[in-house]
């Protein structure tokens, strides 16, 4: 399904994949470490080829509201930013979720809180999987661990967004965004025509034809009874997503006595940790959640009787560890190890920590 192997940064892979998968519009505002997404789009000038709009908005808030508008008209639209900018977008994301609209949001995380640092971090886990904005909503969260997955998840993210009419976030970090690896880009798909959008998305607001009532897209519902019904519908959708869309990867789990759980860059560090541990005769495995919401809780729970301890390895103060603990439900020990503020834990540090828990 793909072409020649190229070498590029994760951020560049997202831009190329967006053009190729028929994205209609990108709206963003520059911030390190993800500025190459918009830079690559500007260099590629897709408005001359596929007709895709690329626009530098006046602010992050402007960009997410342009996405809200584009999504409301049935278009395949996206935005990207890094942690402080993603915080600014939260109101818009809540509105998009509340209006049942599809879109793709990319967060190439850096260390916080506040303006923080430009170095890689995973400290926006809670924000991404537990809401971020207000209200009872969920977004699907995909966590790439390679440049290839940056490209693949751009395509997958749009597919899921339109399948469930829900925002999808790619939660990457400065390492995945900045490093270059081999990537095989997706094949070109045509953008949908306006006619196709009218046919396929009867909810889209593209101008009212005479034969039907206006399509109203809003997250506002003054009547509580109606608002509760709407919430029940959202919750039913979220249960369906939890049932169908859990994605994860296992490494050396079969005979593991100790189990690492890590996503994104931490998972790459943990792959190396597993290699080193196995050389030393330690039966260590790795579960890598690919969807952070829905979280692979059953897949982790499966190992509670087999392993002596789970280790949540993160580039934050211990966020995903809470979901690992919920999955394990007290049946075995769950420990956390991590670094903060833009520091990446080393495989040696992780293995030394694992050893402190070995009996």
């Amino acid at each position, binding site marked *: 399904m793909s072409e020649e192997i190229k070498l590029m940064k994760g951020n560049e892979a997202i831009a190329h994949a967006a053009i190729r998968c028929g994205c209609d519009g990108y709206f963003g505002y520059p911030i*390190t470490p993800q500025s190459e997404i918009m830079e690559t789009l500007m260099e590629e000038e897709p408005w001359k080829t596929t007709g895709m709009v690329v626009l530098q908005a006046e602010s992050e808030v402007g960009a997410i509201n342009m996405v809200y508008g584009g999504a409301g008209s049935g278009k395949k639209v996206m935005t990207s930013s890094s942690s402080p900018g993603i915080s600014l977008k939260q109101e818009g994301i809540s509105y998009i979720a509340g209006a049942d609209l599809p879109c793709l949001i990319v967060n190439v995380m850096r260390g916080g809180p506040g303006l923080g640092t*430009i170095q890689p971090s995973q400290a926006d886990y809670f924000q991404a999987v537990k809401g971020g904005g207000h209200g009872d909503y969920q977004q699907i969260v995909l966590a790439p661990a390679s440049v290839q997955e940056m490209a693949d998840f751009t395509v997958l993210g749009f597919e899921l967004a339109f399948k469930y009419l829900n925002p999808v976030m790619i939660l990457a970090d400065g390492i995945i965004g900045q490093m270059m690896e*081999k990537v095989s880009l997706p094949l070109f798909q045509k953008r949908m025509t306006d006619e196709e959008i009218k046919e396929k998305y009867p909810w889209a607001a593209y101008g009212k034809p005479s034969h039907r009532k206006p399509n109203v897209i809003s997250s506002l519902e003054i009547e509580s009874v109606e608002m509760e019904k709407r919430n029940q519908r959202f919750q039913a959708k979220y249960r369906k997503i939890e049932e169908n869309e859990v994605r994860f990867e296992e490494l050396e789990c079969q005979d593991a006595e100790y189990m690492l759980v890590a996503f994104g860059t931490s998972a790459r560090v943990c792959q*190396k940790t597993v290699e080193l541990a196995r050389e030393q005769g330690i039966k260590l495995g790795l579960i890598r959640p690919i969807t952070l919401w829905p979280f692979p809780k059953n897949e982790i729970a499966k190992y509670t009787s087999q392993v002596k301890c789970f280790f949540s390895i993160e580039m934050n103060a211990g966020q995903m560890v809470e979901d690992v603990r919920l999955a394990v439900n007290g049946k075995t020990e769950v420990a956390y190890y991590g670094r903060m503020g833009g520091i990446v834990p080393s*495989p040696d540090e992780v293995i030394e920590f694992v050893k402190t828990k070995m009996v």
Partner: protein
Amino acid sequence: MKEEIIIAGFGGQGVLSMGKILAYSGLMEGQEVSWMPSYGPEQRGGTANVTVILSDKRISSPILNTFDTAILLNQQSLDKFEKAVKPGGVLIFDGNGISKPPTRKDIDIYQIQATDKSIELNAHKSFNMIVLGGFLKLRPIVKMESVILGLKKSLPERHHHLIPVNENAIKAGMEIINKI
């Protein structure tokens, strides 16, 4: 085969592009490659470094604490990364501006006078290719043809006329690397 390399020096010495050309050369041979730069303000002066991994197997962590080879092009980088070379590994440094040369006994240390050579060749911008030549002489992990292809892939077309200059610089580098 797996080679884990750190290249470090001043911003502007061509550290990142040297790593990129090496990564592209590996790509041309179908190897697994990763290229992870220090990013942000370091790219514009100060110190820059890049971790390059070439391997015939899937690469786990793109971030490393220890390296098979360290190519260190200023004093700050030597101070920081001399200790990060694995025992039995290789350290290459350019003697220009170095007041405290490396001292470890459990690694192989090589000096390359690439700054002097680039001045002699009147090719300042090829400094990094001279260093690359020195490295490839010691660790021929990619073929010369692949490096030329890698140069073609990583340089914009308007710079392709410079490829012969770069090729000469690589060859010159191979001649002037000496064990300490």
